[in-house]
């Protein structure tokens, strides 16, 4: 019979702000973000690490927040979709790019793609459509068939370059 276990204290940074939570160790990072920190932007689509809707950045790298327990990352820095735009609200180039390109339909996948897309755009370079699709293939979308999302990433790269030139 499963009995709940004692809570533990976990301290880590979320979107630049230090946070401390007291939760059962079985709480995934996704659940802690969504329920204990009320950052519901990160979505749960499968909880087995396939759909990518739960993407967050861990020390700047995209990971699946459903696939780790919050206890595993003491002292680490997490960035959620809520932290992709600048603190003053200026959208990240990929967010502007998605908006400009009508990339999304229902939007349930949008947060995951925004996190992964932001990392891809920040990496820079001149990726081909095939290379973009390769990176995006780790996130599922059921509505769009992906072309509009690829277009949005492309627009994000263009906007990032324009901002850099400005």
């Amino acid at each position: 019979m499963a009995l709940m276990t004692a809570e533990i204290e976990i301290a880590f940074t979320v979107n630049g702000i230090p946070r401390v939570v007291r939760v059962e160790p079985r709480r995934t990072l996704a659940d802690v973000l969504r329920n204990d920190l009320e950052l519901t932007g990160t979505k749960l689509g499968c909880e087995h690490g396939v759909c990518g809707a739960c993407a967050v950045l861990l020390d700047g790298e995209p990971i699946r927040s459903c696939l780790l327990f919050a206890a595993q990352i003491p002292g680490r820095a997490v960035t959620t979709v809520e932290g992709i735009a600048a603190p003053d609200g200026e959208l990240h180039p990929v967010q502007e790019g998605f908006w400009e390109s009508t990339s999304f339909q229902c939007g349930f996948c949008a947060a995951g793609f925004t996190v992964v897309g932001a990392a891809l755009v920040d990496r820079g370079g001149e990726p081909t459509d095939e290379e973009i699709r390769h990176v995006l293939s780790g996130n599922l979308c059921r509505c769009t068939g992906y072309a509009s999302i690829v277009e949005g990433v492309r627009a994000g790269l263009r906007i990032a370059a324009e901002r850099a030139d400005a």
Partner: protein
Amino acid sequence: MKAAPFTYHRPGSLDDAVDLLGSLGTEVKVISGGQSLVPLMNLRAVRPEHLVDVGALDALHGVSRRDDGTIVIGALTTYREVELSETIAAACPVLAEAARWIGHEPIRTRGTVGGNLAHADPAAELPAIMVLLDAEIVAVSSRGTRVVPATAFLLSFFTTALEPDEILTEIRIPPPASDSGWGFAEVSRRPGDLALVGAAALVERETDGEEQRIGSARVVTFGVSPTPTRAIAAEALAAGRQPGSQLWNEMAAAAVSDLEPFGDLHASAAYRAHVARALVARVLAEAVGRWPS
């Protein structure tokens, strides 16, 4: 799908981890990257009473090359680190290639070599490469240190020789043959999925004057049988022979005749056998194609 409750431990040193595992009994799991374990826990297919998180054991991280050429990979090294490691690219590039096929980047950022080997999915790439390279797995417990050859470590579907109180600490890959080439091929339902069938080869060249022959060949298949399988009978056919499609076809037939492929939702046994044969021939040809010029 929320995991069943467990008591969480995060030892700060290998000694602490070993002591802990020695005292917690058998209802214990070690977690490193969690990319294979957490889905199973979320599904409640796996429900340890104790979870020992080895993520703080920095000593188990990293890739190095010993003076004798042995490549040592710490168990906590991630797939992404393997993919990008210059040491591995120089010494055993087939390992770096195999790592590229694992899932997607977010998985490769977290998943670890040690976790992958301990999980022993028959369709996984890294266990196959360890078998190909005659790697040794080092496991530590309160009873001491064991060094287990990869073929003896991987016992069956999701079953290894690792005891419940042991931690996999590192993988040692013998120095590679200098004059050799490698090949890797995998067929999966979608890019990034576990393999339906995969094969990898390492072919050493023997130069006899103007002629280039095969010195020795190693071939492994994965995704076909309960563990990755060295095609011993096939390998025996290769020594001293001229490379070419006739030899590859002989070897591929021999490789498959030794296998007992399984069928599942994604592919029939007949499919796995047929494609394994094609991939064995393909990776042998690729390996020779990579002989240094």
